[in-house]
């Protein structure tokens, strides 16, 4: 009996530990420069970086500002730079990081910081809009448009994008050249370029055959590494380059 009670206790006891988070803070009303602020947080082995940020906001400093919505890796709100790598705070378990060192949390790069971890996403969305991320077909949408499983599989990867901007804001070309469409816009163009039901592949290829289009990509693979959805972003970009060279999808 007693052993059973002990073992349930053991299971129930989720280990807790203290971590230090250095968060990049910026208040546009008072600061001229962003600065680091450190917080000690008591967390459990099951906690994610997002939970630690919540604890800071709810228990230590209510002014800490960041975006999050679903908290489960679906909405794409909470991409941030964690220990120098772009990740979703809600998908990054603290125990998977090196907790003997402080954890550094910064806003994603290449977009203007509005406050703390919140950046202006408008240039990112504008690039997305510019590739016409919607089905373009000449027939009226009166009945189902059928598609073979093979044709569907052709662009399956790129349907998974949640527009978190982790890829685009990990791209060194985007950091220095905000005019560049960026990986996410190309991924979402890929989603329609290779969709057999869509009729405007040439239009999108033409848009991306731009001075600031796919040719700016230098194949650094940062985007593939950053994508929380596991999309092979660099490969998708290469496929769009190939399609432009062919002149069709």
């Amino acid at each position, binding site marked *: 009996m007693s052993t059973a009670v002990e073992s349930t206790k053991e299971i129930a006891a989720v280990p807790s530990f203290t971590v230090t988070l250095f968060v990049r803070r910026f208040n546009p009303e008072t600061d001229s420069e962003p600065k680091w602020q450190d917080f000690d947080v008591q967390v459990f082995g099951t906690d994610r970086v997002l939970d630690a940020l919540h604890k800071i906001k709810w228990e230590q400093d209510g002014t800490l500002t960041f975006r999050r919505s679903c908290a489960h890796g679906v909405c794409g709100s909470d991409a941030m730079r964690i220990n120098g790598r772009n990740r979703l705070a809600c998908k990054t378990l603290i125990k998977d990081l090196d907790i003997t060192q402080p954890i550094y949390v910064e806003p994603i790069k290449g977009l203007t910081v509005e406050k703390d971890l919140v950046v202006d996403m408008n240039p990112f969305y504008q690039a997305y809009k510019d590739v016409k991320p919607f089905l373009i077909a000449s027939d*009226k949408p009166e009945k189902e448009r059928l598609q073979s499983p093979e044709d569907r599989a052709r662009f399956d990867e790129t349907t998974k994008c949640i527009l978190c901007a982790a890829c685009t804001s990990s791209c060194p070309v985007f950091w220095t050249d905000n005019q560049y469409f960026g990986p996410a816009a190309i991924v979402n163009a890929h989603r329609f370029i290779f969709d057999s039901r869509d009729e405007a592949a040439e239009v999108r290829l033409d848009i991306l055959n731009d*001075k600031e*289009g796919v040719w700016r990509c230098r194949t650094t693979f940062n985007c593939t590494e950053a994508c929380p959805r596991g999309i092979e972003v660099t490969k998708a970009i290469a496929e769009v380059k190939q399609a432009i060279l062919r002149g069709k999808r």
Partner: protein
Amino acid sequence: MAVIIEQPDAPRSRKGAQWEKRAWIFMRISGVFLIFLIIGHLLVNLVLPERGVKAIDFAFVAGKWASPFWQVYDGLILWLALIHGTNGMRTLVNDYTERVWLRKALNTTLWVTAGLLILLGTLVITTFDPCIDPNVHTYLPDLVCKG
């Protein structure tokens, strides 16, 4: 009621829109050529001659450029490497400069410099005259010098 989505803009064919694509293709094709050209260049100039780099002197160059093969070979390296390198530098300038005037100034400097170097190099390769060395016939016995 069916929603009708208008067909958006037809392809926008802007002036010069193909340039970035051509530059991208050129970087890859010239890269492949340069691999072989440069390996051959290093072999012939540095590895195969018995005295290595010390073998390179006026006679060595005169001997090579007496053959149209090496004139074309060296001309190819000159043109491809300079255009490839300059276009690569243009990419870097576009990466790092934000101010339009600075970007223009740096890129203009790059292409003017490359143009001058290509011009000078091509002139040397095509108009090189081994006869300016009085002892030329010791290493190029078949050479006919005017005057």
